[in-house]
């Protein structure tokens, strides 16, 4: 008797467990269905990128040494250009040196040689042991297209010398249109800095750039803020 009581109590407990399970599953199914029927919240894609400095290959500089001015890598040498004109005359050969150089010139050459000797001798490049031979460069990851434009514009953005930061409290902003082939047009100041030289430098950055890689279909224009 007592055993039958126990069984009945057990089956009642099983029944309530089943109910809870069914309710839970129903809830999940409902939630999933609801989620599918409603639009997802907007996803914010930030046009932001990480900048990676590529450093020169070499021995790291002792941190207790005074700094050195690092020079940008020299531009590639000019390739010899072939003339398109089949009748073009050959370039004139340089004239042989005049041996009768004047006293003044001799003096000047001697002075130049002395000055050259004063200059510090070339030393091996400094950098990081895992650096690159080409030296410092900016490499952007993230939005590849905007990063490439940023690189091009930055190369052409030079502020006039002598402009104090306190003279440009508000960095200027320009806007321009990018054509299907990447040509920039409608370059104009959308937010002035108050200093016309700084504004001009910002506009010039886009004007000098003239053309950028053909944009992806989603991009037709860009806003650029120029800061010191």
């Amino acid at each position, binding site marked *: 008797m007592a055993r039958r009581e126990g069984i009945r109590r057990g089956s009642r407990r099983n029944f309530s467990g089943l109910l809870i399970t069914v309710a839970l599953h129903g809830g999940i199914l409902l939630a999933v269905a609801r989620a599918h029927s409603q*639009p997802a919240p907007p996803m914010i894609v930030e046009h932001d990128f990480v900048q990676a400095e590529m450093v020169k290959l070499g021995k790291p500089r002792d941190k207790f040494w005074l700094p050195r001015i690092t020079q940008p890598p020299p531009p590639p040498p000019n390739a010899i250009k072939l003339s398109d004109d089949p009748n073009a005359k050959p370039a004139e050969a340089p004239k042989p040196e005049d041996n009768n150089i004047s006293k003044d010139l001799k003096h000047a050459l001697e002075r130049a040689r002395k000055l050259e000797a004063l200059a510090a001798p070339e030393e091996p490049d400094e950098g990081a042991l895992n650096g690159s031979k080409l030296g410092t460069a900016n490499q952007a990851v993230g939005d590849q297209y905007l990063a490439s434009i940023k690189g091009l514009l930055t190369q052409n953005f030079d502020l006039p010398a002598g402009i104090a930061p306190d003279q440009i409290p508000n960095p200027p902003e320009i806007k321009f249109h990018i054509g299907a082939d990447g040509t920039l047009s409608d370059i104009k100041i959308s937010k002035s800095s108050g200093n016309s030289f700084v504004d001009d430098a910002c506009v010039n950055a886009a004007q000098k750039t003239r053309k950028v890689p053909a944009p992806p279909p989603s991009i037709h224009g860009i806003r650029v803020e120029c800061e010191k």
Partner: protein
Amino acid sequence: MVAAALLAGAGAPARAEQPSADEDLPAIRISSSGVEMLKLGVPKAEGDAEAARVATETLSKDMDITGLFQVLDPASFPAQLQSEGLSFSSALWSQVGAQAVIKMKASGGVLEGRVYIVARGDAAVLSKTYRANDVRDAVHEFANDIVQSFTGKRGVFGSRIAFALTGHGPHEIATVDVDGGRMATVTKMGSDSLLPAVSPGGAEIAFTSYLRNNPDLWIVAAGGGRARRVSKQPGLNTGASWSPDARSLVLTLSHEGNSELYRINAEDGRIQARLTNNPAIDSSPTYSPDGSQIAFVSNRQGSPQIFVMPASGGTPKRVTFQGKYNQTPRYSPRTDKPQIAFTGRDERGVFDIFILDVKSGHVDRLTQGKGSNLDPAWSPDGRLVAYVSSRGGIYVSNPETRHEVQVWRGSAASPSWGPATRR
């Protein structure tokens, strides 16, 4: 029409199809890759032949010294541009690559100056007349106005640089225009004089002379005259720096046996306070522009390094940690940008000019690979630095563009740049 920075999820309206507000344009921010020196044409001035020649030479040199302009070689100007007179044709000038052009006419103590910006058409952006007995004064004044019209801050022309003339014979104190013109010997001590320090108002120069067989501190009027002996403690009386109110001087004295820093009265040389007390050598003090701090050199931690302490004395804080031999600190007169220029010896044994940003501790190098360069002196506006070089003479460099110009060819030591004068 325009890329939307906000991409909506599934089912969102196709916003990219509609012309949207400019705010939705993707935005990037660029910072300047460098500073650009404006290409400047300075054609030969009009007017009296000699005055015109001086005006052209002086203005070209002044513009070069600012380190803001690349002065174009007049040899590249076609005859048409040389004979244009005071008028201006932007189309022609843009062909020679000029971005701005300065025109002058000098005659009978009057200088007419005009500034044209090629991109802004044929009207002058600055047109002014100057009167002066010496055309150089008028040109320097015009140069200051030009700098102001481009940068918003006046130039420093009209100020003078004091230095020790270190040629043959005893070294005397001399002063020279910023462009190296009108050198004048200020002292006639007949005995070695060195380490000049121009007073804040520019009226006096403190210096050390061995006239009485001891390195005493003397003061002379900046225009020359009889020097008066201010501090004659036995031993060193050297490396004076004026307090901003010009009432006192901080210098190195060694009458108590060791080189320590003291503050003395600028009138009678009475000692007001001893500022350091350390068995090491303390020297080369320099006041911060607000007079609250003093930077100096000390070898108390081994090698000579720059330290900063409160002007009333107190515990010095070491501020240079790179290099093993840093000396001759000079506080920049700019209150908005605390900087100390100093001479440092690098790991190759070469002396060069460095600039310490006091707040961040970052050290920037001003000179490199051109002989040895030492003894920096800030211009009164803190935008240029003068120094002496083993290449000979005094050079001036703009730390922003690192463009340097030799302003004085003769032998010189320890320059001190006086204040800008307003006529």
